[in-house]
């Protein structure tokens, strides 16, 4: 079988990721390269220079992937941390101004050079920051362009899109030969808000790498658990999209009936201070722990310490953290407005705004062994088939189809 060469444009890559996008690019490319696909992954800049851990890790762990940094994009004012910050910020934030949009344009110009240098059969661009680069690359090489939507501006902003970003997204979606959406939910948004024919959008659900979650770890929150308290966990960026304010309101409602439940919020983001204030204004200071941004084994330990993982997202194109929780055997309660709810059956599902419904479910899980165990056991079996291999297989088929139809 012919080897397929993919020129892939992304924006972040672990461990320099602020959220699911980097994790998804990592998981997908790693599985793609196990089959007959070679990937040249383009990042807008070299994170922290050539000696950065990041490059070593990727080169060491992922065969067939070349990481190309676009050196000219190193900007005097912008550190890698700030880039991550940009990704997090809502568009109205003042820092989210011309600088980032400049970077997107420059990334696009650089993409022309890369497209000329790197041999490839298909172009694959992840989310709006890379769409322009994808379009430019296609202009040079004439190869088919696939744009992959992990989130839209409607999801990130709670329905109040920034015009520039919306235009970039729209341009990329219309220029693409094929669109990949991470869920049916996201496909619907693309069709509804961006004027795209449904037949042009393929749904490829994200997956997880199960062996990343199987190693033994010392327990976290041991004292809390030994005191008989139950732990309810939120993991995600603290932004409007993820519904952290609903989490606090649900916590309040749960604690009215069962004061022994402890709520843990892991993540950071532009609403962080606002949420901490909200919690303390509601008198929940000692009932909610803010753990900050946690990754790796520390995050795994949190998942395992929790009796229930809650994802009250207002709009969640996928929601990888929910899969991670299940892979650790922890039951989940997810927003019906989430892509992950399409692939997981053994999960509790609520409307994000239905505080009473979520509180009802949380109170039942923390008080009933039977409910907790059934959800945890069947849920973790449920996600065993939700893998990056499966996602990569679907992408490979899309590559083949599109290359053949371009001939």
């Amino acid at each position, binding site marked *: 079988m012919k080897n397929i060469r993919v020129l892939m444009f992304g924006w972040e890559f672990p461990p320099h990721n602020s959220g699911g996008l980097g994790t998804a690019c990592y998981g997908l490319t790693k599985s793609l390269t196990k089959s007959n696909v070679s990937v040249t992954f383009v990042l807008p800049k070299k994170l922290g220079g050539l000696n950065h851990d990041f490059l070593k890790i990727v080169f060491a762990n992922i065969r067939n992937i070349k990481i190309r940094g676009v050196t000219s994009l190193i900007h005097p004012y912008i550190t890698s941390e700030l880039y991550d910050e940009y990704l997090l910020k809502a568009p109205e934030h003042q820092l989210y101004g011309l600088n980032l949009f400049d970077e997107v344009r420059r990334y696009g110009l650089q993409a022309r050079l890369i497209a000329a240098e790197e041999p490839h059969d298909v172009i694959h661009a992840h989310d709006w920051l890379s769409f322009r680069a994808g379009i430019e690359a296609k202009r040079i090489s004439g190869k088919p362009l696939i744009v992959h939507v992990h989130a839209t501006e409607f999801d990130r902003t709670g329905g109040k899109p920034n015009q520039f970003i919306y235009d970039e997204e729209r341009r990329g979606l219309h220029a693409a030969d094929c669109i990949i959406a991470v869920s049916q939910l996201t496909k619907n948004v693309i069709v509804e808000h961006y004027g795209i024919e449904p037949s042009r959008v393929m749904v490829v659900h994200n997956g997880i790498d199960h062996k990343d979650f199987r190693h033994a770890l010392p327990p976290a929150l041991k004292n809390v658990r030994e005191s008989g308290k139950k732990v309810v966990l939120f993991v995600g960026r603290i932004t409007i999209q993820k519904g952290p304010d609903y989490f606090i309101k649900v916590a309040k409602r749960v604690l009215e009936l069962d004061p022994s439940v402890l709520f843990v919020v892991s993540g950071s983001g532009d609403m962080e201070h606002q949420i901490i204030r909200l919690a303390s204004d509601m008198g929940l200071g000692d009932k909610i722990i803010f753990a900050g941004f946690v990754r790796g084994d520390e995050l795994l330990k949190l998942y395992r310490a929790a009796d229930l993982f809650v994802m009250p997202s207002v709009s969640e194109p996928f929601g990888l953290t929910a899969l991670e929780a299940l892979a650790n055997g922890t039951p989940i309660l997810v927003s019906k407005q989430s892509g992950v709810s399409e692939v997981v059956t053994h999960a509790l599902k609520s409307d994000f705004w239905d505080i009473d419904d979520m509180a009802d*479910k949380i109170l039942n899980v923390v*008080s009933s*062994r*039977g409910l907790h165990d059934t959800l945890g056991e*069947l849920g973790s079996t449920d996600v065993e088939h939700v893998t990056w291999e499966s996602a990569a297989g679907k992408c490979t088929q899309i590559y083949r189809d599109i290359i053949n139809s371009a001939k």
Partner: protein
Amino acid sequence: MTSVCFYFQVHQPFRIKKYRIFDVGHDHHYFNDKSDRDINNEKILHKVANKCYLPTNKLMLELLEKHPEFKIAYSFSGVFLDQLEEFSPETLVSFQKLVKTGRVEILEETYYHSLAFLYSKDEFVRQVELHRAKIKKLFGVTPKVFRNTELIYNNELANFVEGMGYKAILAEGADNLLGWRSPNFAYRSPGTTTIKTLLKNYKLSDDIAFRFSSKSWTEWPLTSEKFANWVNEVNGNGNLVNLFMDYETFGEHQWEDTGIFEFLRALPGAILKHPDNEFITPTEAVAKYPAVGEYDAHNFVSWADVERDLSAWLSNSMQHEAINNIYALEADVFATGDAKIIEDWRKLQTSDHFYYMCTKWFADGDVHKYFNPYDTPYEAFIAYNNVLHDLRLRIADRKTKRVQSKKDVVVKKKVAKKVANRAPTVHVKKVSGKKAPKIAKK
């Protein structure tokens, strides 16, 4: 001679409404959903009455009038009859008319269509007694044949029910228990002397109940002539064809447009065309045919799912927790002496509640999903669990009040002490005094 024995199960549970934890302590009405959802018991009963009970009863009456040889049997759960009285008296009248023909037998079961035999023999006996009284009251007859909820059966049950005086008990004709033997004979359970076990011929029963409208089935479309030929083939290697199925097969599980009513209308005539065929009721069947061998069921068998075991109701830990919780309340429930509390506790024993919590194949969307009025097994469990919290509060509340009133009485009058002690338990003694009595003896 081949005797065809038709038996139909007729049951509707009291489904629990969407009951949130915030309703605990405020709302003691668990079964009164008035929404458009399928947990609205009145709505479901009307729907099924119009699609199945009324048209099928009308047809059965026609058939009984047309063919003097035609006979059938029903088992009505008590909670089904309660709902007929409350929501659809005309349906009840149509069943009464059928029974009046004298060729329609009614079987015994637990009033609440429960799994009580597995958890409390005392409660099992009480629910059978309640059922017997209800049947006597509504139909003027006393059942002589027993069938347990969803054909759940084992040797112990057969022996126990023999002790209660029944002449026959129905069971699934499970392949693993029959081995090479045919279900088309009467059997007996090891250890029994008089009671006979009648086994469902699941192949022929399910041809009607499940496969009738399945276009991927090689025998589709099923005609009454074809089915009658299959019955004729039993001649010579069996004497009894037990066709046991849900009554809702007609018009509800198999819709009218599948041709199920035309099939049923022509079936008695087609079967009676063969001179060696006849129809028979379960009581007549055990009077006519001797038991040919032992049907040895150490473990429970049922007619549910491909497993034909208890896993539809009792396979995940939610189901076990819920059912253990409900039976753990038994003593406390009776100690209240509160008829409403006792009734609610019993309505919560109906097997359907646990069926709705089943997670087997939930992901594949099969029959469990079709028959589940809740979106998920988890929603079913949560509503049940919340209701249980409320029931516990009501029990505790009665207890406090009782203790309080007792104290008052003691202080006021020593003489009154006896009365105060006895009063709340009078009901208990009345319903639980007898153990495995010979209640079906005539």
